[in-house]
């Protein structure tokens, strides 16, 4: 009994800590102070994770290319982000003469603020959600859509052709994939019947034997998760969908004209968006903070949440180390001709799953439909593709 209460306390340690700190204040101020403490925790933890991720990303990419990666600053190069931070703080902040100074200044702030807002509704552990909103999912997507605004603000206000091209690409790409992102999340909402993220986690936090009821372990959930992962990669401008900042074509895309700490803010915003979208994917499909086996439930819920997020980040890095950048037309074709129809089909399959009731039949039917559609769409779209050396019509 003593051990179980120890683990329960460890699970709720941050909540207990917050309540203990708040108890020093008069009762009238306690709710507000609790929220402020939660905000402080989020604002400290995620940039810290960002700093670690930049090192691990550079080291991981280096290892993928059989290099050593940064290992000069501190043990194993772990203090590299400190050096990078000092560098970006001491660099000159250059604003182009013809730029719109106000919008140019606001763009990185808008990005970071809106991305941080998304964390407010993510359940990072049992009872660990800053605002338990009924329409948390909707709030998250609203905030995610606002980041597009900041990208376009940055690109447009810089008065630079590369910035503007990057911003145009970014907006085209983000709007295309936003649709997929929303629709793949809708199938989860159809099953749970709730837009509240803690409720979605609770719905997955049950076990058959030792195995959990995560949505990724159902046919529609797996398909939905794959589509969500593709859309999330595009939404966060990560390779292979990093066209908005394709450094070989557009210098740096929409943040070409940013230097010093404003650039660091863009960098931070990009990684925070990665954390947020991985956190949402974890919540929707990977069971949020629930343990992967029923006998592991004693491990604190927040450990599970953060390890799942970091695992997703690792997959992001792994993909970046593997895949080349797409062309703009390939990107659009992929979004509108493959990912979107497949996500729509997945909605139908989810409905079928919902109304076929319990039993093995729905597993067979849903798997068959999704697999057949995947193979058929793959065959159809690849039918007219030529592989091999590029042929030039006029140049030869």
């Amino acid at each position: 009994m003593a051990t179980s209460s120890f683990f329960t306390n460890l699970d709720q340690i941050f909540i207990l800590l917050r309540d203990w700190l708040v108890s020093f204040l008069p009762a009238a101020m306690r709710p507000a102070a609790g929220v402020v403490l939660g905000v402080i925790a989020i604002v400290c933890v995620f940039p810290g994770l960002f700093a670690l991720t930049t090192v691990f990303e550079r080291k991981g990419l280096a290892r993928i290319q059989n290099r050593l990666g940064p290992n000069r600053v501190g043990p194993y190069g772990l203090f590299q982000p400190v050096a990078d931070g000092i560098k970006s703080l001491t660099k000159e902040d250059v604003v182009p003469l013809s730029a719109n100074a106000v919008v140019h200044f606001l763009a990185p702030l808008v990005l970071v603020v809106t991305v941080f807002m998304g964390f407010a509704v993510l359940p990072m552990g049992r009872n660990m959600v800053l605002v338990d909103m009924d329409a948390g999912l909707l709030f998250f997507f609203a905030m995610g859509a606002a980041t597009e605004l900041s990208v376009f603000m940055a690109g447009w206000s810089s008065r630079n052709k590369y910035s503007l091209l990057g911003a145009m690409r970014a907006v085209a790409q983000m709007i295309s994939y936003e649709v997929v992102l929303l629709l793949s999340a809708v199938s989860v909402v159809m099953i749970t019947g709730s837009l509240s993220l803690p409720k979605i986690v609770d719905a997955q936090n049950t076990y058959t034997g030792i195995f959990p009821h995560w949505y990724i372990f159902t046919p529609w959930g797996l398909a939905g998760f794959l589509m969500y992962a593709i859309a999330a990669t595009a939404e966060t401008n990560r390779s292979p969908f990093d066209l908005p900042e394709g450094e070989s074509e557009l210098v740096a895309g929409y943040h070409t004209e940013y230097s010093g700490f404003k650039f660091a803010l863009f960098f931070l915003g990009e990684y925070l968006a990665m954390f947020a979208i991985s956190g949402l994917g974890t919540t929707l499909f990977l069971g949020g903070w629930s343990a992967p086996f029923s006998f592991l439930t004693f491990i604190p819920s927040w450990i599970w949440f953060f390890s799942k997020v970091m695992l997703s980040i690792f997959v992001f890095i792994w993909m970046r180390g593997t895949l080349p950048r797409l062309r703009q037309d390939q990107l659009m074709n992929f979004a509108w001709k493959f990912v979107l129809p497949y996500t729509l089909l997945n909605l139908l399959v989810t409905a079928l799953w919902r109304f076929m009731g319990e039993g093995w039949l729905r597993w067979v039917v849903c798997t068959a439909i999704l697999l057949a559609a995947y193979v058929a769409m793959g065959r159809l779209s690849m039918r007219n593709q030529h592989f091999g050396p590029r042929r030039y019509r006029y140049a030869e």
Partner: protein
Amino acid sequence: MLGEGILKGMAETARNFFGSYVSKERLTTVEYPEERIATIEAARVFPFLVYDGADWEAGMRCVACQICEKECPPKCIFIEKSKDKKPDYVGKQQFYPARFDIDVSVCMSCQICVEVCPFEAIKMDNEFELATSDRFGGLLYDRKELARSNEYYHSIHPTEASEVDARLNEEKAKVEAKAKAAAAAAAAKAAATVPPAPAAGGGS
């Protein structure tokens, strides 16, 4: 099937990722300041002046002919000819450079000075750690800084240095043989001219 190539690629990168922790052969990086690989023999950076023997000033091969100064494409060599002469490696009296400066911030390491030098006096060094905090004086090398012994030349470019030595020795031998022959001829002439004198006298 769609996505097969992506999975194959991911497997390949995963193999690299884990393999680089397991096998040392995958990591080709040489962490430079701590560990370094020996420079190859043909490596060249900036020129230096070769001297024979122990004293750099007396043994300097350069005779201040100024061919390299004229040929140098970026004009980084400056030579001032001496007023007096000193004997070169075969003992002939030659001028020597009173000043020989190379501005290595201008030098482009083309090796043309080495190609045109008829006296094997200027060669390419492979020393590359030349960083200095003084970008004007520190990068303008005078003849003392440029002087390197023939042994040093042997240590950095052994093959080339042996060829050069062989050629120089051959020339020296030729000159010595010529001198010997000339001496012999002179001796013979002297021998030939001395004895007939009385005969000539007797003949008259």
